[in-house]
């Protein structure tokens, strides 16, 4: 009987577009990469509720408040779908949350920027969720089944997030000079951090493309970033605003927009924890967790008591 290499068998499944399910055999590194990536994604959804939460009580109308509440609630839900998907790989919810609070697990750096004006809520929906959707649409086809299914659900809901953001900016862009200035200012501040969301340039990564080979990822950082820029550079025309990049120009030969250099020092500073709100975000998460401890304990004690009485 020929000797079957389990790693080769696994790769054959991937190559044949057979999804990997929780009980299937998988290389340890595949499991670890997925746990890290899915839990980071979950943390990003949960921490991502904070910058927007800042504006729920300050929304300019009841309509905008209801929309923002629904969006933030969605993000909580997205975090929960993703934590569940990561748990199927054998890491407990508690471990994941501890890793977030200790700083071991990361979340998207974009949420370490402050939301200074109402227009920031529009810019987050349009640019930040817009960038996230690029990644998430790709991930609906990721090779790990539970992650792919969570992504399908999330993508269905996420489209509302981007549209409501653009809609909020559209209103401002057709408003008074003050409102238009506020709109442009928010775009100026969120544009570069949104581009950084896609991660370092492909040439920066010297290691093997294992995530591509395992089809956890199907597009590179630069590919996703370029798709995003091409989309936004067109959409902004409707707003009558401009993107804060003097080098942004359509390149007829490449059939893509050229763009200027991203400030990678800033990117790495924020990743390392030195962004404007890193401390504030983690403190808020830890506080919520610690102050909720008695509720978690009381609920389980109550459930036990009811079972035995």
């Amino acid at each position, binding site marked *: 009987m020929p000797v079957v290499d389990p790693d080769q068998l696994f790769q054959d499944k991937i190559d044949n577009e057979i999804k990997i399910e929780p009980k299937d055999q998988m290389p340890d590194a595949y499991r670890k990469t997925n746990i*890290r990536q899915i839990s980071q994604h979950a943390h990003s959804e949960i921490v991502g509720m904070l910058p927007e939460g800042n504006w729920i009580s300050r929304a300019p109308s009841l309509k905008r408040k209801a929309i923002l509440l629904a969006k933030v609630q969605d993000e909580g839900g997205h975090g929960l779908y993703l934590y*569940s998907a990561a748990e199927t790989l054998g890491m407990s919810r508690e471990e994941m949350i501890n890793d977030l609070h200790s700083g071991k697990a990361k979340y998207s750096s974009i949420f370490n920027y402050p939301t200074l004006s109402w227009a920031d809520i529009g810019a987050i929906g349009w640019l930040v969720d817009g960038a996230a959707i690029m990644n998430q649409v790709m991930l609906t086809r990721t090779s790990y089944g539970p992650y792919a299914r969570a992504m399908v*659900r999330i993508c269905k809901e996420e489209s509302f997030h981007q549209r409501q953001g653009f809609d909020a900016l559209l209103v401002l862009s057709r408003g008074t000079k003050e409102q238009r200035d506020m709109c442009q200012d928010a775009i100026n501040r969120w544009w570069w951090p949104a581009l950084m969301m896609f991660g370092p340039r492909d040439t920066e990564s010297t290691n093997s493309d294992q995530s591509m080979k395992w089809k956890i990822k199907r597009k*590179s950082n630069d590919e996703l970033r370029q798709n995003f820029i091409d989309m936004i550079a067109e959409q902004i025309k409707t707003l009558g605003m401009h993107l804060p990049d003097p080098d942004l120009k359509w390149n007829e030969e490449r059939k893509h927009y050229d763009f200027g250099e991203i400030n990678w020092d800033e990117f790495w500073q924020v*990743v390392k924890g030195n962004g404007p709100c890193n401390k504030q975000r983690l403190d808020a998460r830890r506080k919520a967790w610690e102050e909720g401890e008695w509720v978690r304990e009381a609920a389980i004690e109550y*459930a036990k008591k009811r079972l035995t009485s």
Partner: protein
Amino acid sequence: MNLLRKYYYGDIPEDKTGAVPPASASGHDWPLWEVFIRSKNGLEHKHAGSLHAADAKMAIENARDVYTRRMEGISIWVVESKYITATNPEEAGELYEPAVDKIYRHPTFYELPDEVNHM
């Protein structure tokens, strides 16, 4: 192995971060529940996902919030995950292969004259 160090969107390598070691986790999670949802009368309940809850009532309430924010359901079942018995992928051969060579169980196995349309 160097596999884990490439930085992809949404996958920040841990070695770039200078993190403190995490506190150890020791089973404080609420029990895990599987959620099944009937999207409308006439259709079956279908697995929607899972969640943590202290008891069945809370599991239903959480399932309502997590899985039916957009009218996805009109009926919810929850069952604690530990009560589900499942097959293992290793048993796939003995369980499902016997069906593979019984193609005569499918209507397309039978080629009938054109006159007997729609049978």
